[in-house]
């Protein structure tokens, strides 16, 4: 059964970049900071592509943000997604607003499956997928992973970790939870959020990048979707945590043991 899959691609600071808070605490220093697709969203896009390769269908990628967020949509299109939707909004967002806007996109597109990242690596909120599922009255399977490791044969063959049932009416999702891994079956349409071990995302190929330029990228104005755009999570002030100073280098295990035993008194 072909699957229509909606995935999200949020524009975030590159996880390799050094994040500094502005002196007035109103934001972070963005000079010299690179941007890219949220790493968890790359995993979401990869999973959607594998499901499409296995079952047929369509992968639609949505992002909410300013015009620059089109870059992250193009990146997903270059990986192989079919078309994009940019929900234009130039102000602060929070998971409340993001999920309300994504619910509108869902109503327009009526996908079988929505795959999001479990968290954005900027705000680290870990909420948008759960909010979306609740708003739509759908089942949720957060922190999707798989039994096989990222070095396994299944991964090399690019098998999807999310398994579509034979009747095409539900998906089985393995989840990383405390103390082990859990499996859930969720009726379609469903909301899934990705954890790190679900897959290794592919790199866009040069032909993929060329093709992406011609793929459809529709723009919707957030203000026209009938959603309250006032954030409910109001960031009042940012600061840098107290930094931790390095200590000393010890010469050998003997000295290490003495330090731990006599100085730190932890062993």
């Amino acid at each position, binding site marked *: 059964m072909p699957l229509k899959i909606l995935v999200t691609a949020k524009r975030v600071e590159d*996880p390799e970049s050094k994040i500094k808070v502005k002196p007035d605490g109103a934001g972070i220093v963005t000079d010299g900071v690179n941007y890219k697709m949220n790493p968890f969203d790359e995993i979401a896009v990869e999973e959607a592509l594998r499901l499409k390769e296995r079952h047929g269908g369509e992968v639609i990628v949505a992002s909410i943000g300013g015009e620059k967020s089109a870059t992250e949509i193009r990146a997903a299109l270059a990986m192989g997604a079919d078309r994009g939707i940019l929900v234009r909004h130039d102000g602060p967002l929070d998971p409340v607003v993001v999920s309300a806007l994504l619910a509108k996109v869902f109503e327009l597109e009526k996908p079988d499956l929505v795959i999001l990242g479990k968290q954005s690596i*900027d705000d680290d909120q870990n909420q948008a*997928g759960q*909010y979306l599922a609740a708003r739509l009255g759908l089942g949720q399977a957060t922190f999707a992973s798989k039994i096989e490791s990222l070095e396994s044969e299944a991964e090399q063959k690019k098998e999807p970790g999310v398994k579509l049932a034979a009747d095409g009416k539900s998906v089985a999702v393995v989840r990383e*939870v405390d103390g082990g891994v859990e499996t859930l079956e969720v009726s379609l349409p469903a909301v899934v959020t990705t954890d790190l071990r679900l897959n290794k995302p592919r790199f866009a190929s040069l032909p993929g990048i060329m093709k992406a330029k011609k793929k459809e990228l529709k723009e919707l104005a957030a203000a026209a979707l009938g959603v309250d755009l006032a954030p409910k999570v109001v960031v009042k002030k940012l600061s840098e945590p107290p930094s931790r100073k390095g200590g000393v280098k010890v010469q050998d*295990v003997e000295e*290490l043991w003495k330090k731990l035993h006599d100085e730190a008194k932890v062993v």
Partner: protein
Amino acid sequence: MANVLIVAEQFGGAVRKATLHAISAGREVARRTGGTLHLAVLGKGIGPVAEELSGYGAEVHAADAAVLEHPLAEAHAPVLVELARAVQASHVGAAATAFGKDLLPRVAALLEAGMATEVLGFGGEGAEVTFRRPMWAGNVLAEVALATPVKVFTVRATEFPAAAKEGKGAVTAAKVSVDAGALRTRYAGFKEVKSARPELTEARIVVAGGRGTKGDFKPVEALADELNAAVGASRAAVDAGWVPNDWQVGQTGKVVAPELYVAAGISGAIQHLAGMKGSKVIVAVNKDPDAPIFQLADYGLVADLFKALPELAEKLKKSR
């Protein structure tokens, strides 16, 4: 409506320790709002767990039903929403465990509430509680306010003390009006990672290994056992399938703050540091003298972990 509802987590008939830290946070918020603390516990056959929780002095609302046997957010959320309304909660919280992080955002959405994840502490004045939380892998601390009548939060257990028992609360049955047949999620199994070692987030000592182990965790585990420690790992080691996902320490894994954290063959990427830099004493064993982990380790040893860890374990054994 200024009461506080803390959602307890139970597993296998016992209260998860992280819940006790969330109760501390709940007491603090209730003091600020002038409200009363309530506890909720959901599951099947949870009488003894509810009884245990009543020792923390707050009224315990026990939702005991077959449909709640497994921690399905879809089934649990509506019960908590009804309860939050019934007890007139202005704040609903839980520990930031996998359970809490899965469930509470769904509860928040249904309560039309804003939410703060992994709260480290509270700010603001009087009943106007703000939430201190990490962003960008802990490189930034944010103070956030929630502009909704009901406010939802999860707390990082290591930042709040475990609540001490005090007084005796009543145990009442919470209403469960969930139609099992209408659920869109079905529980299809759990593969437990059994371990005789202390729980990672609760252990006094953690010994962690990274890519430098090349897949051989024996020296890491042997040292951990000598120290009665939990074993942790970097993402690289978990991704490779060397150790269970449950062992990952970091921004997107577990956050630990033990008295002693030993990082062996771990380079010290910010995403890893985000999960352990609150440790009291950090030891790094790495053969690269320029590894970033040395910039924050209290004691750094430039050495091959395959030699240094067994030597340290031997030293500990002899000194006992």
